[in-house]
């Protein structure tokens, strides 16, 4: 557990600079497109603006619509508690928190889908249906890398797995990282699967579910999305760059640079790949699952 100051500091750092990642990704995409692009801190400004605004609710929607964003964010922050976000251990950890981590993400998705359905609009329904379908496939894809970690280290707690010595290494590490990266792209609706800044409702998946949210609710949702990106990014980073040994400052710096690198990579991937056809999307998720299997067999 080690409820020490460092992990608390990491947790707060994560809360603060989660939206920063999105800014970096947008800047990288703009750079590739030859534009100056929006300021890196754009998401902070949006959040601040939204939090000060009122809200417009659809006459059709009810309490579920209002509870959706709140529970979504709560679940994601809950998941963050268990992830060794900084250079050190996670705030909380018990044997079996990998499963809790995956199911908390599932809970967040479940409530966003219900909130979307509550609006009674056909577009949000379509988004909800697609999101539900992809999440059904993403769940096993997420479990597989975690399973490999558990199998190698014999630990079923995220924090313990990362701290243990017999970490995944060599080719299995590559396979696990690739699988996790695919899941990262799917969960955070990046280009190959879903286009974050499309304006045609029929093509959106993740965005259309937030179509009817306004004011503080929309702020909570976008902050939740950013936090989720930071979450999965943290796992990827901890996996790719084995930390440990150095002081808190050095670890934190190394971790932040890793996250930055991840954001840049995502930006480049988004700019030079077109979006997959809707029927091809499950193929990508199943390939993530296959990579996981391969990692398991090789490890």
């Amino acid at each position, binding site marked *: 557990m080690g409820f020490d100051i460092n992990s608390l500091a990491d947790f707060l750092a994560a809360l603060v600079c989660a939206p920063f990642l999105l800014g970096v990704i947008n800047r990288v995409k703009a750079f590739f497109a030859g534009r100056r692009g929006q300021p890196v801190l754009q998401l902070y400004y949006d959040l601040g603006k939204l939090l000060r605004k*009122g*809200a*417009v*609710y*659809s*006459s*059709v*929607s*009810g309490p*579920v619509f209002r*509870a959706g964003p*709140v529970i979504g*964010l*709560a*679940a994601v*922050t*809950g998941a963050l*508690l268990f992830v060794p976000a900084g250079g050190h251990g996670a705030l*909380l950890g*018990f*044997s*079996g*928190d*990998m*499963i*809790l981590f995956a199911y*908390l993400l*599932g809970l967040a*998705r*479940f409530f966003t*889908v*219900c909130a979307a*359905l*509550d609006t*009674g*609009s*056909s577009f949000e*329904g379509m988004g*909800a*249906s*697609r999101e*539900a*379908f992809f*999440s*059904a*496939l*993403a*769940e*096993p894809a997420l*479990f597989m890398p975690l*399973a490999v970690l*558990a*199998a190698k280290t014999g630990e*079923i707690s995220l924090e313990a797995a990362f701290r243990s010595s017999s970490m995944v290494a060599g080719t299995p590490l590559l396979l696990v990282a690739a699988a996790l990266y695919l899941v990262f792209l799917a969960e955070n609706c990046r280009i190959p699967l879903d286009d974050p800044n499309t304006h045609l409702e029929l093509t959106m998946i993740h965005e259309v579910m937030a179509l*009817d949210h306004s004011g*503080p609710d929309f702020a*909570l949702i976008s902050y939740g999305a950013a936090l989720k990106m930071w979450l999965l990014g943290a796992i990827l980073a901890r996996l790719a760059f084995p930390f440990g040994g150095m002081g808190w400052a050095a670890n934190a710096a190394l971790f932040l640079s890793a996250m930055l690198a991840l954001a840049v990579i995502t930006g480049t991937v988004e700019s030079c790949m077109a979006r997959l056809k809707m029927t091809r999307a*499950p193929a990508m998720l199943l390939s993530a699952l296959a990579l996981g*299997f391969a990692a*398991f067999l090789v490890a």
Partner: protein
Amino acid sequence: MNLFLSSLVLLALAGAVSLFSRTVRVAAAATVAACALGLAGIVPALRGNIISISLPLHIPGGRFYLAADSLSALFLVPLFLLGGCAAVYSLGYMQKRRGAAFLLMNLLTAAMAVVFTARNGMLFLIAWELMAVFSFLLVVWDYEDSQSRQAGWIYLVASHLGTACIIALFALAWGKCGSLDFDAFPRAFALLPFGAVAALTLLGFGAKAGFFPLHVWLPKAHPAAPSHISALMSGIMIKAGIYGILRMALMFVPAPQWFGWALVLIGAASGLMGIAFALAQRDVKQCLAYSSVENIGVIALGLGLGFVGVSAGRKDIAFFGFSGGMLHVINHALLKGLLFMGAGAVYHGTGTRDMEKLGGLRRAMPVTAACFMAGSAGIAAFPPLNGFVGELMIYMSAFKALSVADAALAGLAALTALALTGGLAAVCFARMLGVIFLGQPRSAPEKAFHEAPRTMLAPMIVLAALCAVIGICPVLVLPAVFPAAAMFCGAYFGADAVIAGAGIAGCLLGILAAALWIFRNSLLDGRTVSSAPTWGCGYSAPNARMQYTASAFAQPVLSMFALAPHAEPAKELFPKTASFHSRNRDLAKARIYNPLFGLVEDKLSVLRVIQGGSIHAYILYLAVALVALLIWALI
């Protein structure tokens, strides 16, 4: 033990009283009292010491021998809980012939209680078939419509085929050890070939539990019964199959490696196929019935991992597997009971069970909506509620099995199946919740729907509360689960940390959500909050029917399983007609059972030419029989 027996007698009496007295309220109170008495009766068994009673029963091989150990107690707890709730629920739900319905329900509960405690083969079989008969009479409750008659017939035949395997198993054992008592069965099973015993057990009890290829009757029978009866059946009766397998497994312990494997594969198949078919259904109760098949699959996964752990010698894998499976038995009983009662309330309020015609019931039936949401979140196994705790244990067992050489593949198979099933379950219940309760009503105007009466809501609230409480502090239900799991693989104390962790996580989540909710409200109270029609992307005349329907919601997922709803494309240049229908043909039934029954009938109808009506042919048969016998005698 006499407390337990007196509860059974009281149950029967309450039923009989309800038959004659006009108000069924008295009988309901008596039934609830009987269930409470029953619960009190099995408390000593929960703590591990076996209570038993044995009287002579004057039929060959029969002995009135009841004994409740911790395994029986595990199954009796949800039985009495649901039995009481169903009794209260039926007060509001049943309109016609209430007395008879009450009698049958009470007798069904009593028969199930005897099944869980019988220690003599003859008594077990009698209680088993009585359970089937009473539930059959309740399935064909409104025998006016041919649909429920057909369902009743399929149910009766399927349960009879299952019982035939059990009868064969008991007869084999009786032949070998000369007595029908369960205590003598281990001796008999040692002599019998293990393959035969295991096959008969899995077939016989699997048919009642609803394993994948044998589940065909379940989605037809459960929806036809009145809702509180399908709650009882889905919650407890299919668990009798699981109980049977466990009871028999106790007798041929140690089971070889492949038995655990078989259960894991069956569990995976049942889970995936169950939830896939559930997604393809339009009828609420059929969807819930198929999800029962899926949950039975999950339980089978847990038990399978338990047996794999036992044969691999790892006590922790086994303990997690068994306790996960058994915890899921209790959780599923409560959750499925809650969901079926919810579906009953919907049917009671709206008069229809077809999801495509419902929608927006949240406004008309707020309490039912809240309970149904709690149930769906629970059964999709999300953290704060009790479904998560059961599946967490099974996951732990799967994860731990990964690092053991010969159990790794089983663990991997279980893990992927459970993950995919969990994902699809979330989709299925989001769909059901969204399509029925959220959005706008798709058919009749809202005021026609009315909330269920208080007597129906009370049990639902009680069940929802129970689920939440078990989810938050699972330590409440452990005394029922851990001793039962320990019967199979010895006590193991690592599990308490996991359970405590899950509980803490649940509370934490609650606190976080509450904090955010307060934060959000504080932001909004100063601001202008207005309401407007949903953003229809500028479409000029949106109407309620444009909402996403159940089959539309499930279409992408089903396209993977070749169960997608069938859309008839318009063929002419200027299409006048185009049609869309979503038939939910049950693959197993169409591909396995219809051809099988057809084959049996053709083969047998060949024999029908014997009765040709001509007396000469008849006497010829006589002569031929004589000659054949003569030849047989002389060779």
